Structures are given as C-alpha cells and as structure tokens.
C-alpha cells in the first residue's frame, strides 16, 4: 500500500477507487490490481497516462491523467501578438497543423472584423480538408497498428507523405506549416501545388480501397474491434464527444454544416454517420470522411477563383515583402503590426471550426491591445479523452489499446 502511494499520488488513487467504495485498498490488492499505463506507453499516442483498476483482465476503473505535454500555450498567447501565435498553433494538433492555422486566423478575423478574399478562403478550405485526410490517414494507420496490423500503417503514411509534399510546395514546410496569415494566406497557391493536389486526389481513391481491402476482409481485425468500446448517442453527447467520434454514435453534427464558416455552404458533401458507436464504426467513419474531404477538395480545385489572397486592410494585414522594401507606407504598417500587433476592438468572440478531431475553437477576450487578454483553446482531444473511462470500463485490458487508437487523441492539443 505504501509503495503504491509512493508511485501514484494519493488523490489520483482515491479517484480511481471511488467508483466502488466497498473495497479497502488491502483487500483490493488481493483481488484486484492497479495498473499504470503510460505516459510512455507506445499505444497511448503520446503522453497520455491511464490508471486502470483491474479485476482479472477486466477493467473496473479508469482515471486518465493529463498534463505531461502541458506547455502553457494559453499563458503564452496572453503574452504575444495574434501574429506571433500562428506558429504555436502548429504544435497543438501536430498531425494536422494546417487546420489549426485556419482555426486561429478565422477566430482572429472574426474578432478584428477582417474578411479574407474569396481565393484565400478557398485555399484555406483546401488545406483544411487535406489536413483532415492526412490526420485521418494517421488515425486509421496507427489504430490498425495498435491492434496488430502493421502494413496498413505503412500504406497510410505513404499516402500522407504525398500530402506533406503538397505542403512542401505550398509553404516550404512539411510539418509545422504556419501557412495562413490574418486576412489571407502567406502566399498564393502555386499552380504546381494545385496540380499536385489534383494528382493526389486522382490516385487517392484506389489507394484508399487498397487500405480498406487490407482491413475490411481481415477477420482478426474486425473481430478485435467490432462491438468494442461502444457508447450510446445520449452518453456521447453528454460526455462531450465531438467530431468523428460523435458522428460514429449516430449524431449528425458537423460544424461545417451546423455553423458554416469559410465557403462550406457552397460545397456539396455528405456528413457520414454510423449508429453503432464502437471502434469499428469510428474506423469506417474516418474512411468515409476521407472520401468526403477528397470530394470537397475536388470541388475547390474546380471552383477556385482568381484574385488576391490578402485582404486590403493595411493597418491589420501584414503587407507583402516586396512592398515593404519599396514603399514607405507599407514599411510603417509592417513596423507597427510586427511590434505592437493589430489591436482588435474591445470585445470577446468564440469561433470554432470542424477540425479533424472535432470542434476546434478559440475564445478571445480583447481589451483593445495587440495581445489577447485571454485566449482559450477549446481542443477536441481534451473532450474526447473525457469519455475514455466510460468506454473502457467493462472491457478487457487489451481493448484499451484499441479504444485509445479509435478515438484518436492527440496529446499536443489535449494538454495545450
């Protein structure tokens, strides 16, 4: 008992044992076992720590412990300008940095009253959807790897590499992109990038079918995840599930449809839903979403208008480098924006996008300075992890790995 308390903080232990109070700890150790999983466990997708209370191999208690990747981004955001924080959003959900960039600038634009030009909005839509595909590919791959199918991981990462190549052409970085700017995007999408995106979409469907064939006809995989970690519609809503996990429970909720932003209401796409709410449904749903996202990107590539990619608001939007070097006015604006920020009016806004994991929102309180007075990151993974105890209780210990893989938490954004 003393040794257990040395290793696990007494308060955490108390939370773990609270579910059934008829056991004292000495008793519990004879019949039951407290197992510490993580934070360095390879299947926890980063540094998620789970404390499991086991009866044989069955789980009767689970307490997730977060904070091993807490870098204090909300505190940092209060001490830097809105422009300066864009690179930090890359590090929130590091599997789909582009989507985070889009979410951040949309929230700032709402606060400051800027509207990006049409072409910039289409480019943002394209990168957000490609980021969703990339993220879901990693989710499917690592989920399959967690339950023992290694090949799928290699194949989905091969597909993701192609998206990273598009990022490379688009903004020069493959991983931490920082591509969007307030009032537009860093640079216009090059024809090569758009051509590469088109090429990617053409060959994406066959490769997705290949991936599907590996898993859908694989009895080991299906029996391993079918019916595991099921959750009902009501519980899912109440426990704060969001994104693909919520839609896998039969709730047709997608912010692209329910609270449209950018130009999503001009696009033709379906919101796939499943009713089972188990690991298998979440896997199928991610596959379907990849297809729908590919459909949106295809439409974006067809409809993308010509024109500028920066809003014409010199006091709020950073001017282009060639103008700074040749024009006095632009130089002054650049100096003011870089040193003092864009000073949005006093007020507060919340803006959320449908990120690849769910509702990714930013809440700002502005006092009229260049820095936000308060910045709250509403991260989807944080809320998804909350439902984990509900999902794993009653399951076998080996299913925990499958369930974590299927809800796809990214600790970078869960811990902020």
């Amino acid at each position, binding site marked *: 008992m003393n040794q257990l308390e*040395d290793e696990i*903080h007494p*308060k*955490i232990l108390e*939370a773990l044992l*609270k579910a059934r109070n008829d056991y004292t700890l000495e008793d519990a150790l004879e019949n039951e076992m407290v197992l510490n999983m993580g934070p360095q466990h390879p299947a926890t997708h980063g540094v998620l720590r789970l404390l499991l209370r086991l009866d044989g191999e069955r789980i009767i208690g689970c307490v997730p412990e*977060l*904070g091993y990747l*807490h870098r*204090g981004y*909300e*505190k*940092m955001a*209060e*001490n830097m300008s809105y422009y300066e924080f864009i690179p930090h959003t890359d590090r929130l959900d590091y599997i789909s940095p582009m989507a985070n960039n889009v979410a951040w600038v949309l929230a700032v634009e*709402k*606060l400051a009253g800027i509207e990006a030009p049409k072409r910039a909005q289409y480019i943002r839509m394209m990168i957000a959807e490609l980021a969703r595909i990339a993220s879901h590919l990693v989710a499917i791959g690592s989920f399959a790897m967690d339950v023992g199918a290694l090949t799928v991981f290699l194949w989905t990462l091969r597909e993701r590499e192609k998206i990273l190549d598009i990022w490379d052409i688009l903004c020069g970085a493959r991983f931490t992109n920082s591509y969007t700017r307030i009032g537009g995007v860093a640079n216009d999408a090059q024809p090569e990038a758009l051509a590469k995106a088109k090429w990617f979409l053409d060959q994406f469907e066959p490769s997705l079918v290949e991936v599907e064939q590996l898993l859908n006809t694989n009895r080991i995989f299906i029996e391993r995840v079918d019916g595991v970690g099921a959750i009902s519609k009501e519980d899912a*809503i*109440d*426990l*704060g599930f*969001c994104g693909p996990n919520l839609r896998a429970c039969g*709730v047709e*909720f997608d912010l692209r449809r*329910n*609270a449209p932003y950018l130009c999503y209401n001009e696009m033709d796409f379906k919101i796939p839903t499943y009713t089972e709410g188990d690991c298998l449904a979440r896997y199928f749903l991610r596959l379907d979403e990849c297809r729908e996202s590919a459909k949106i990107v295809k439409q974006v590539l067809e409809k993308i208008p010509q024109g500028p990619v920066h809003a014409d608001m010199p006091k709020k939007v950073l001017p282009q480098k060639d103008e700074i070097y040749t024009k006095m006015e632009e130089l002054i604006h650049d100096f003011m924006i870089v040193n003092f920020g864009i000073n949005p009016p006093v*007020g*507060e*806004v*919340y803006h*959320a996008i449908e990120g690849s994991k769910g*509702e990714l*929102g930013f*809440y700002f*309180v502005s006092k009229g300075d260049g820095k936000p*007075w*308060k910045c*709250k990151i*509403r991260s989807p993974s*944080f*809320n998804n*992890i*909350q439902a984990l105890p509900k999902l794993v209780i009653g399951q076998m210990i080996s299913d925990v790995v499958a369930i974590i893989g299927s809800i796809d938490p990214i600790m970078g954004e869960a*811990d*902020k």
Partner: protein
Amino acid sequence: MDLKVLIPQKLKASFPSTDFEISDYKDEITIKFDKSYIIEVCRFLKNETELQFLICSDITAVDWATRKNRFTVVYNVFSMKHNFRLRLKCDVDESDCSIDSVTSIWRAANFQERETYDMYGIKFNNHPDLRRMYMPEEFEYHPLRKEFPLIGIPGSLPLPKK
C-alpha cells in the same frame, strides 16, 4: 421566433427574481447573471424542450486582475436543435472563489471545470472529482492568474523523488 429574443424572454419568465444582462456582439449572445442561479439556469436551458442546449462545449474563466469581481466564469453551450451558440457568464469574487458545479447537468463539464480550477483556482462546489488537470498536485499556484509570471516560479515544480 428568433432565439435572440426567445431565450431572454423565457429566462426572464422563469426566473423573475434574477437580473439577466444580455449582450449581442458579433452575432454572439452572452447572458450574464448571478452565480447562485447557475445550476437552475443551466438545467432550464438543457431541459426546456424548445431550447435543448445539450452540448456544453467549453467552460473557462477570465481573470480581470483589477476589477472588483475578479473572475468571470464563462460557459459555452450549444443547441443542436437550433444550431445556436450561447455564452453564459457569472462573476466570481476572489474572496469567495467558488461557484456551483454543473457536472450534474452536463457530464462533459467535469474535465472543463477541473481545468478551470487548475488554471484559476476557482472552486466548483459539489464537483465529483476536483483535482488539478494539468499541473502536479503539489503545485501551489494557478498559472493563468495574471499575477503568475510568464517564466514561472523557480522551484515551484517538484522534481521526482529518488
């Protein structure tokens, strides 16, 4: 009827003794009221069949540093029926730094309130498991309070034993 009119009307009819401060900024409705009503108002918003605010997306707080009521707890709720987002605000003073927990209404509030407690030190009464979310239990400060320095406090984070 427009929800921006309907919600304040319904609230005023159901809670005649409370003051509701309603503001509309950038198409977002914020309702501010006394913290003692938080449970009743939230339960009403969730259970009223015409409103159905089933999703509690976010709970956070704002530290105003110099104001009389130092903190404002902010609730961000969403109604899937109407696709409508609503913000609820309650002032909390530093001398009585607590507010009732809404975990009995939305279970999603559990982690969100724990995070707010960790970052601001606001206690949520009747919370089932009010522990720190991110920082270690031994940590004495609340990092998102304005007096906490950006570089942190040296020596405040305990190193592992042994």
